[in-house]
């Protein structure tokens, strides 16, 4: 019996065993991540003004996400199309959030039952 293999234009075999991307220094990334966690806990401990605290905490969270995606998931070595897919996902969530925003948080409290 004869099998057709994936020599049909795919540049690589799908069962490729080595990968094509580089490897960052994972340990350094881990240290950064733990330091960031420390920052968000410190913000919580020192009782900064709420707005500043929230901003710092979420900036840190996004930074951490960026570190994980770029280094651990190797997005920084990835094809542009994959960047597009990931950012399209974020963009669509943003559209959803902004589209619904006037109908949930901005509803006048008088028409919302008080609890």
């Amino acid at each position, binding site marked *: 019996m004869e099998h057709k293999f994936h020599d049909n234009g*795919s540049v690589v075999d799908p069962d490729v065993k080595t990968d094509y991307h580089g490897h960052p220094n994972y340990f350094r990334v881990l240290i950064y991540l733990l330091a960031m966690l420390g920052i968000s806990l410190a913000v919580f401990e020192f009782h900064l003004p709420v707005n500043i605290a929230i901003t710092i905490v979420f900036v840190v969270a996004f930074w951490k996400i960026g570190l994980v995606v770029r280094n651990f998931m190797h997005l920084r070595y990835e*094809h542009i199309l994959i960047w597009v897919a990931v950012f399209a996902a974020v963009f669509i969530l943003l559209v959803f959030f902004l589209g619904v925003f006037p109908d949930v948080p901005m509803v006048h409290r008088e028409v919302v039952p008080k*609890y």
Partner: protein
Amino acid sequence: MSNNTKALDIRQVPQGRLAMWTLIAGELIIFGGLIAVYLLNRIRYPEWGAEAVHTSTMFGAINTCVLLLSSFTIVLAHNEANKNNIKRAQLYMFLTIVGGLAFLCIKSIEYSREISEGLTFTSPAMVAKGEGVKSLFWSFYYIMTGLHALHVIAGMTTIFIIMMQIGKGKNIHRVELAGMYWHMVDLVWIFLFPLLYIAK
């Protein structure tokens, strides 16, 4: 390096990785949808802050730490699998599974503390205690952390299966794919942590 590889042909990206990225984009939107819905409600009801006080920042921080470490071990497993050090890759995968189990244990201790305080999924307990609070904070808390915990279990199962497979010398490239899924689980938690445990 990175400029150079971005010009690579999309067909050089292995099928598994491509599919995994697509799956991750889809999963991000599912979780993101849930988080967006929570955020919208959270902005609408500032008084939920009073209930978020009952979540334990310490447990949350320990769990974040555990997940970050397990993300680190799975990426090392991928690194070792690349160099064909199967035994060490399996060791790191095992450590990742231990991390996942630790996460779930801490989470269940946390759940039981909260439930014994009367903070349950449906949360009418707050009303019963005479505090007159009837909010969805705890419903959101349990649905988000619960859905995340389900993903942790799924990720652990996947890693376990692949750990067994690479022992037989099969599917070594899948270590990376399972790792990507695990990182996605980690990402979601990184965002849930400030959302539920710090913003009070």
